[in-house]
Each structure stands twice: as structure tokens, then as C-alpha cells.
């Protein structure tokens, strides 16, 4: 059982690597389907924004609520805004956003491409002399890569706003004072790696969803499987890659 799980995981990773390589080879060559990329941006963005936004706000609220007593115990509650800001911008914002988008977008893409595969729509495209990989996969992955930093920025802002509300309930802190300490606490080394890794998460979300969907077999059952596998695999990869990236950033930036 465990062995077959492990071997199927590595099998997936192997074929995913080939798929990613094909993406890299196709993305730079014409024809460019800008219209499609824009259409996916609109659709994927509006599909995930409400959920990631709400979650970001609530997590910010909870984080401030949770951290406050601890800091208070050490007489360090003045550092609360800084503490929240750094954890959110560096880690929580990017990862929460990525995991939610993985659940929503990766599965959606998997199901969409999967049903196109089993109803022969992908074959139909191929037969018309249009490269379905380019039209379906490259455009979606690009949209995910562009979308992820934008969503994360919004989630960060809403999370910090949530934290402000939570702090406001307990003590009275002015809006300007709060943002002042937030902004002063954040350095380049927090913001840039935080946002940079979101593009990698975006790539994972897009490519895993597309890979599962594109090579779906086994009819409608296969479509369901493609969609769930996409969520599981992309979430897992996001966490693994995050771990590696955190290690690297800590090593490089301190």
C-alpha cells in the first residue's frame, strides 16, 4: 500500500517533469494566445478571490488574537503589528493563498481539461492543426503564474487589515500608527522572497492541474480522479517546495 503510493507519487513526478519541460519549450514560441491568457486570468481570479480574501482576513484576525497574550506575557505587545506583518508577508500569506488556490483552481483545471480529453475535444483541436498544449495548457499555466502574486498581495493586505481589527478590539491603536509600524518592520528581505515564491506556487498549481487533466483516461471516473489528484499533488508540492525555499531564503538573506 505505502509502496504503491510512493511509487505512484514518483511516477507522477516523472511525467510531470516531462510535462513541465514541454511547457518551457513551448511558452517562448509563437503563436501567443494572449486573449486566452486574459480570459483565464479573469475567470480564475474571480473564482478564487472571494474565498482567499475572506480566509486571509480571518487568518489575520486570528493570528493577532493568538499572538497577543504571548507577547503581552513578555511585555512585548508593542511588537504585535511587526510580528503579524512579518509572519504574514513572509510565510502565511503566500502559503495560505497557494493552498486555497490549489484546492480551487488546480482541481478546476484538472476537471476541465479532463472532460475535454475524455470527450475528444483535445483530439478535435489537434485534428484542426492547432496545438492543444499551447492553447489549453500554456495559457492556463501562464495565467496561474501571473495571478498568484496578485492574489497573495491582496490576501496580505486583507490579513493585515484583519489583524488591525483584532488589535483594535483589545486596545486602541490608531490606523496610522498601526500601518506605520507594519511598514517599518517589513524589509526588502521579507517582501521580495515572499512574493517571488508565489510565482513558483502559481506554476505548480497550473502545471499540476493541467498535467492531470491533459492525460486523463478512463471516462468520467477519470475526470473526478484527475481533479482530486490535482489538489492533493499540488498542495503537497507547494508545501515541499516552500520548505526548500524557506531554507534557501533564510540562508541567503538571514
Amino acid at each position: 500500500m505505502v509502496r504503491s503510493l510512493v511509487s505512484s507519487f514518483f511516477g507522477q513526478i516523472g511525467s510531470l517533469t516531462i510535462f513541465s519541460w514541454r511547457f518551457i519549450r513551448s511558452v517562448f514560441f509563437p503563436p501567443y494566445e494572449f486573449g486566452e491568457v486574459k480570459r483565464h486570468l479573469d475567470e480564475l481570479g474571480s473564482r478564487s478571490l472571494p474565498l482567499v480574501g475572506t480566509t486571509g482576513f480571518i487568518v489575520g484576525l486570528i493570528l493577532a488574537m493568538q499572538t497577543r497574550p504571548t507577547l503581552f506575557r513578555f511585555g512585548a505587545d508593542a511588537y504585535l503589528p511587526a510580528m503579524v506583518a512579518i509572519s504574514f508577508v513572509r510565510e502565511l500569506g503566500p502559503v495560505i493563498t497557494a493552498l486555497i488556490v490549489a484546492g480551487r483552481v488546480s482541481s478546476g483545471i484538472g476537471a476541465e481539461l479532463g472532460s475535454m480529453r475524455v470527450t475528444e475535444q483535445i483530439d478535435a483541436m489537434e485534428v484542426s492543426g492547432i496545438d492543444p498544449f499551447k492553447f489549453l495548457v500554456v495559457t492556463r499555466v501562464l495565467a496561474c503564474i501571473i495571478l498568484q502574486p496578485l492574489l497573495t498581495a491582496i490576501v496580505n493586505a486583507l490579513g493585515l487589515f484583519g489583524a488591525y481589527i483584532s488589535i483594535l478590539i483589545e486596545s486602541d491603536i490608531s490606523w496610522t500608527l498601526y500601518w506605520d509600524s507594519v511598514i517599518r518592520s517589513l524589509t526588502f528581505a521579507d517582501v521580495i522572497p515572499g512574493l517571488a515564491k508565489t510565482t513558483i506556487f502559481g506554476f505548480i498549481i497550473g502545471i499540476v492541474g493541467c498535467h492531470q487533466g491533459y492525460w486523463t483516461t478512463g471516462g468520467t471516473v477519470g475526470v473526478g480522479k484527475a481533479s482530486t489528484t490535482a489538489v492533493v499533488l499540488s498542495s503537497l508540492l507547494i508545501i515541499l517546495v516552500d520548505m526548500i525555499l524557506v531554507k534557501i531564503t533564510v540562508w541567503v538573506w538571514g
Partner: protein
Amino acid sequence: MGLIEVRNVSKSFNGLPVLEDVNLVVEEGTTVVILGKSGVGKSVLLKAIIGLIEPDAGSIRIDGHEVVGMKRKDLNALRRQMGYLFQGAALYDSMSVRENLIFPLERREQLTREELEERIIRQLEMVGLEDAIDKMPAELSGGMKKRIALARALIINPRIMLYDEPTTGLDPITAREISYLIKELQHRYQPTSIAVTHDMMCARIIADKVAVLHDGVVEHEGSLDELEKVDNEIVRSFFATE
């Protein structure tokens, strides 16, 4: 020499042979109907001809060019002269009927908006569905989907047309209508065609020549009149359905 030549083609899936040694020649401008029971590999054969499935062995030549192992670029160039009607219609379900028809057209011909629109309307009139232009595939009945798929496949004026079960799943009246529609198109544009079916009525209407596919090989070939005289159980079973 035929425009389409299939020689000794075999294909198996997971060790189970589907096509064993298929030979078929289609002369330019004619229509060959392939009769065969469900599951004998009719769709597999058509997909092999257009390069969607790679045969395990054998050769498929279109206009003298070998399709098996052909480079993607050449294959695409060849496909631009070919139309394919999928068994399940395979309409793009995220696109309206108009967009479904535009899709193959706008990427191969430089046409203005008006010219595109005109071509699409002409095509939809041909299949009698000009009112469906703004509908989504999910809003169409099975028969309507088939007809839109037919319009989409033919909008590029293909030199070669492959039909996978153009009439299956339709009521006899619509099936007859579609068969006559195909016949009319064959008459008007004279594409070289292969149609796969187990519908004898359709075969009678559109076929110049018939080939019976059974157990992985083409058992018999000839005109319908010739086939009717053949003393073979498989062949006779098709006529028995009439």
C-alpha cells in the same frame, strides 16, 4: 494509386489486438464506408489515419506522404486539408456554436470579421441550424450537436473527410437527413471520404464502396451490390439489419 492507402496496419492496446492487418485503398474523390460491429476498431482505424493514434506496425499514406511517424509540423500541414467528424461530436463546450466554427477557420485563413461571419452562417444554413449560432453546446440536442460538428468539420472545405459514425444515436429520420446531407456535400465538393458506421441505411446513401472490418482485418470490399451477393455470415448479418 489511391489518395489514402492503408497497408498492413496493426494496433493493440495493453496486449489485446484490435487491428491485426488492415489494408484499405481509397481513390481520390470517392467515399468508402467501413462497416463493422461495435468495438472492432473502426474509430481506432480512423484515428490512425489522421495521426491521433500511432499504429504498432504498417504504413498509412495520404497523397503519397507517410503519416506514421510524421513530424508534427508536416502532420499539421496535412491535417489542414482534412476534416474529422468525431463519434461524440466533440464540440468545444466552453465555446458557443459560432466560436466552435470560427476556431478552426480563423487560425488558418486570413479573413475579415464579415467574411468569417458569412462563412459561418452559410455553413450553419447548410446543416439547417442557423438559429443555433449563439447557443452553447450544452443547449443542443444530440442530433443538433452532430450537425454542428459536421458544419465545423466541413467549414475548411477539406480535401479529405473522415466521418466516425455520422448517424449513430440519432432517430431514423434525422439519420436519413444527415446521410443525405453528407451525400449532397460529397456531390458538391467531392472530398475523398471514409465513413465508419454500422448503419446500413447511411451506407446505402453515401457509399461508393464498402469495406467490412472484422476481427482486425478488412474481410470484404466492393460495391454494396457486390457485397450483397457474398456468401459470408458477417457480411450477411449487416444486410439482415435492414
